[in-house]
């Protein structure tokens, strides 16, 4: 309560120049998870003040957005600079955005192929508002609009240093179960972080070429140069295992158009694993093909529906087990199939119902994977009580419905009743988030 009053005070002082919100949110666990070391009943218990400042001039826009967070659960308070940038029109054909900003592209609905900008899945899984899934990065972005035939825009975004996704285990809110790491742990092997990681001192480049809309079609091409967004394992001198981010290039394209009153979108990306081009290293991700197709339409005035199909195909899959074993005996009898599939399929469905002049919105978003045999069900209710006061209720339900337990672990009783696929590993992290927000 005290902290809320404190924030309110700041709000009153700054409300003349700033806009933003104050909010309080609580994500209660639906069950205990013994793998979480502090065994807290809440995933989130935090108060947040967001301040936004915008100044527009002929030179361009200056924008600033920052969150001040009091995290009661982890007993910490911190400052989270979401955005601070200058967005300027340099000439008729060139815009420049420089500073810290959040970037998004691609056509998937919460499934990303060519969008390799950093993500924060901890926020998403714990029920923070959807925009917190996208993490900021420090970048210079050039957006050119050449008056050339057929070209709408060329985007080039350069980050001087690599921006990883926020790992799910950070902040001790969720326990990730990775059979590979469990194998290390059960053999008493600690994995360190690579001291001089290539990624840390290396740039990231995201680019997009967008064609002009023709016959109602939007077509874009993408190229990414950087690193895998989540850490992988590196075996050095046959004894030492380290986390690191391996090199990745992505070549992709996307396409969308109106179809039967809805929007059809497709996206493809080839993930080229430069540190393991031929699948020789069993521990580094092999190159893969990724594609999605999405169809969204309005069933009625207030109801909309979207279906999405996503597939990921790992190249040289058959080599992985053998190559892992070649690297270390530790991987004998490793159940690769439980770790990853050659073809992973992920489907999503989004159903939205708006009522009371769109002030009350019900959304069901559901991921399910027939190959991982797991699902993530995310129902959400948003209610705008007034122009100032908003209520959000979000549930994060993770479940697995298949036999995906690493048998070896099950025998050892370490991971009994735990599944280890993408969503099912969080079965004991199911939570419900309630957020109250005051906007000013």
């Amino acid at each position, binding site marked *: 309560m005290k902290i809320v009053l404190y924030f309110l005070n700041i709000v009153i002082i700054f409300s003349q120049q700033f*806009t*933003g*919100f104050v909010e309080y949110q609580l994500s209660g666990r639906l069950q205990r998870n013994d793998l979480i070391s502090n065994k807290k009943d809440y995933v989130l218990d935090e108060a947040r003040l967001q301040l*936004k400042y*915008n100044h*527009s001039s*002929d030179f361009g*826009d200056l924008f600033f957005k920052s969150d001040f967070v009091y995290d009661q659960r982890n007993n910490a308070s911190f400052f989270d600079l979401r955005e601070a940038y200058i*967005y300027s*029109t340099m000439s008729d054909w060139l*815009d420049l955005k420089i500073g810290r*900003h*959040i*970037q*998004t*592209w691609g056509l998937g609905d919460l499934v990303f192929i060519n969008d390799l900008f950093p993500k924060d899945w901890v926020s998403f899984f714990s029920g923070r508002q*959807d*925009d917190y*899934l*996208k993490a900021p990065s420090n970048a210079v972005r050039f*957006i050119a*609009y050449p008056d050339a035939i057929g070209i*709408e*825009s060329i985007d080039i975004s350069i980050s001087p240093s690599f921006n990883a996704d926020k790992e799910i285990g950070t902040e001790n809110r969720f326990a990730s179960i990775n059979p590979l790491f469990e194998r290390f742990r059960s053999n008493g092997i600690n994995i360190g972080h690579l001291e001089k990681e290539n990624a840390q001192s290396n740039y990231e480049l995201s680019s997009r070429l*967008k064609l002009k*809309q023709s016959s*109602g079609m*939007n077509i874009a091409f993408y190229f990414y140069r950087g690193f895998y967004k989540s850490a992988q394992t590196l075996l050095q001198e046959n004894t030492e295992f380290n986390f690191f981010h391996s090199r990745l290039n992505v070549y992709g394209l996307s396409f*969308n158009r*109106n179809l039967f*009153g*809805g*929007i059809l*979108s497709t996206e493809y990306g080839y993930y080229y694993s430069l540190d393991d081009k031929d699948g020789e290293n069993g521990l580094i991700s092999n190159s893969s093909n990724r594609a999605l197709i999405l169809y*969204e*339409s*309005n069933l*009625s*005035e*207030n109801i*909309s529906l979207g279906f999405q199909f996503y597939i990921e195909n790992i190249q040289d899959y058959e080599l992985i087990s053998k190559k892992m074993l070649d690297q270390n005996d530790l991987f004998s009898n490793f159940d690769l199939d439980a770790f990853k599939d050659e073809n992973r399929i992920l489907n999503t469905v989004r159903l939205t119902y*708006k009522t*009371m*002049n*769109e*002030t009350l919105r019900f959304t069901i978003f559901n991921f399910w994977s027939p190959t991982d045999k797991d699902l993530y069900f995310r129902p959400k209710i948003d209610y*705008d009580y*007034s*122009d*100032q006061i*908003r209520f959000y209720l979000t549930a994060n339900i993770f479940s697995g419905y298949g036999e995906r337990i690493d048998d070896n672990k099950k025998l050892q009783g370490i991971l009994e009743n735990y599944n280890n696929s993408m969503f099912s590993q969080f079965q004991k992290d199911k939570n419900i988030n309630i957020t109250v927000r005051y*906007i*000013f």
Partner: protein
Amino acid sequence: MKKLLLMTLIGFAFSQKADEIIKKSHLNYYYAKNDGKANVTMTLVDKNENEKVKKFIMSRLDLKEGGEQRYFIYFEKPSDISKMTFMVYKYNDKDDDRWLYIPAIDLVKRIAASDKSSSFVGSDFSYEDVSGRHWTLDNHELIGEEELNGSIVYKVKSIAKTEDYFTSKISYISKENYLPLKEEYFDKNNDIFKRFEVLEVKEIDGVATAIKRKMFDFKNNQYTIINFDKIEYDIGLKEEYFKERYLKKAHRTMR
């Protein structure tokens, strides 16, 4: 027989006259000059008299009189949607193209062109109420002339040619400036379900402009009032301003 023929002819003449009135009204109201811009305040009032207010800047460009148009909306309030933009390419012969830009995540999203009768940004006005319904979609009949709040108006009855969200509509169109001063929408049981009214008219750059409009929703017993402020016509908007570039960073003339 002669009488019947005469009546048919008179009927035909009246429907032709009605078509002309509706068309003229449509062009005056939705296609005033070549382009236009206004600061809009939209107030929703529910049955308990609770108010919700949205503020935005709306720009329009006509590519062809009575035909293709571009709309651009730059949101200002509430502050959680400030800098959000919405763009519509409106066509007469096919579904609209629509895009929404969400600044919090820098996302440009192409959105499905929903039913034209669906709510315009959560208000009691529909997309069609904002951008117009092409006059050829209905059969029109002039059913009289009368006085409405001091103006002489044509009373025109329109019946949807194919099944639609309304069965019939009565428009009260000013004889002087052809503004639709009132419209009543009826369902198949001939019950009124929404009523549009112009509350204030102001002449701007020679164009009689409805600067205060109200839509009453009988089903939910609530209404929306739209106020137009700082209206400007023929400000020189260009087709290229209605592109993704300006969704992300609205052109200075459109904000």
